[in-house]
């Protein structure tokens, strides 16, 4: 057999299944469309924090409310929650149409899979790209928070990490789900019935203690609540270590399980 001779040529296979190259591809595409994302990345946090934190906050900030928020202004309570919840929204919009389109519209994932790029490489490259986007968005948001003076503790900067992890906890399973879709009908359902309710009811705008007792356990199961609690605890300096570990463990579990599901879903979609 001449196999070894053939395997020692000028051509190498990319490391890590080509994850870096897939990331490069994403960046190349983004270079063409980045203008469209400037508003959602930089302007919308400013507007949100101004309207909700400053505007709404001035109505809310009085004795009893400040007490139930743990002794801080509404804006300081809200800002880290939005920081984390925004990660969820960014991740969801990066992992729906872009994934389904890669299988169904342009079929670019099929093109990649015909090369030495592996299924794991495609997913790694995608999630690395989402991580980069999340980091950018969260950093921009945090800078705005800082400028408004909404950050209480120096640990608040770690809220960027909490936002990225919250985003990834959604990106991984949504990526897997999107890989199995033939069209984009289900995505509106995801946004309407999962992302928006989670944004509103996972402790972002008010403590979940305000929710009926029967609904609260649902919030505990969502990555959003854990991400919001983590970012808020860091920003207000009120986080206890055990709670932090629980939040991290839950987010990590979603990321790991979602990635495992994505591996299966991609393999199925590519090797039909």
């Amino acid at each position, binding site marked *: 057999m001449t196999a070894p001779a053939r395997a020692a040529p000028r051509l190498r296979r990319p490391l890590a299944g080509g994850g870096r190259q897939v990331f490069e591809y994403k960046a190349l595409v983004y270079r063409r469309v980045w203008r469209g994302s400037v508003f959602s990345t930089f302007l919308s946090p400013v507007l949100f924090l101004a309207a909700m934190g400053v505007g709404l906050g001035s109505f809310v900030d009085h004795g009893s409310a400040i007490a139930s928020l743990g002794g801080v202004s509404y804006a300081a309570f809200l800002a880290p929650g939005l920081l984390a919840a925004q990660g969820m929204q960014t991740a969801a919009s990066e992992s729906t149409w872009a994934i389904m389109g890669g299988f169904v519209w*342009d079929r670019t994932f099929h093109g990649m899979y015909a090369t030495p790029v592996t299924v794991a490489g495609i997913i790694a490259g995608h999630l690395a790209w989402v991580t980069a986007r999340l980091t950018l968005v969260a950093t921009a948001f945090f800078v705005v928070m800082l400028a408004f003076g909404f950050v209480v503790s120096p640990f608040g900067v770690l809220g960027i990490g909490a936002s990225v992890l919250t985003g990834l906890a959604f990106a991984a399973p949504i990526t897997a789900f999107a890989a199995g879709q033939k069209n984009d009908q289900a995505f509106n359902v995801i946004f309407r019935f999962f992302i928006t309710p989670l944004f509103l009811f996972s402790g972002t705008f008010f403590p979940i203690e305000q929710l009926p007792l029967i609904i609260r356990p649902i919030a505990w199961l969502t990555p959003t609540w854990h991400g919001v609690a983590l970012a808020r605890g860091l920003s207000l300096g009120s986080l206890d270590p055990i709670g932090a570990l629980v939040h991290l463990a839950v987010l990590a579990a979603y990321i790991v399980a979602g990635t495992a599901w994505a591996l299966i879903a991609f393999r199925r979609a590519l090797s039909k």
Partner: protein
Amino acid sequence: MTTPLPNAVPADSSDVGRDATSGTAATERAGTPAAEHASEGPESLIRARGLTKRFGAFTAVDAIDFDVAPGESFGFLGPNGAGKTSTMRMIGCVSPITAGELSVLGLNPASDGARIKAHIGVVPQQDTLDMELTVRENLIIYGRYFDLSRREAGRKADELLEFVQLSDRARDQVEPLSGGMKRRLTIARSLVNEPDLLLLDEPTTGLDPQARHLLWDRLYRLKQRGVTLVLTTHYMDEAEQLCDRLVIMDKARIVAEGSPHELIERYSSREVLELRFPVGILETLHAELDGLADRIERLPDRVLLYTDDGEAAAAAAHSRGLRPETVLVRRSSLEDVFLRLTGRTLIE
């Protein structure tokens, strides 16, 4: 252990004779026969034994055997749904085999998929070009998937755009390109890693004649450089133009194998006499046709007489008093073989 890559081997001398039959073929030739491979004995680039692909209860490929030699142009012919694409996807290491054996470049697709893919080029049936990138960016990013450096990928992109005559569109978006241009770009992209083996799944389906001839010309040049081509098609002229050897697939199995010439010899006659009669006449003819040819096939509007001497058969028909509307003597083609083996019934 030091076998040269097929790319380095000059075109095999056995395909010299094909120039006469392929009108579009380029005439530049390497000229020197490849002796290196002969001394190593026969070695298959692709080897399949009992190769099977099932999707649930449906069998797409049913225990087929074939070998593809280095430098050869090998074709899979067959009607839609015969199992050609499934076979190609197994060779391309994207679709796992269900049963049997398959080796590609001497390696096992199940365990060495990425290694094999580093050395093959794939032109899929449906384009997988990226519509958000320019023509040149499509090539560069594809080169990166093979771990070419950005500089190498850029150089390769320019060279390939030249080869497929798309240099003047390098900075354009892909979306507005014509079907033929997209196809050429797909072929250019499949060559970015200088593959030893090129898999082409219906490379010219849906293209106009000019685009098809240009593509054939480019593929023929690759063949001359020693690239092994494996293609599927349901165009008989394409198979005759490009394939040294082919198999005809029907209902998941291989029903015939050989060179186009051998297949015609084996399954058809040298010539075909086509007699077209006015409506209603053909049904009244019975004994008048007997014995005029080795094989007679009646179609709704005409009768085909398979014979080695079409002129003689036409004269014989005339002397029996037959007065067809039109008389056509032609050489037997692969299409005759194909229709004989896979039937005339429409398969959908």
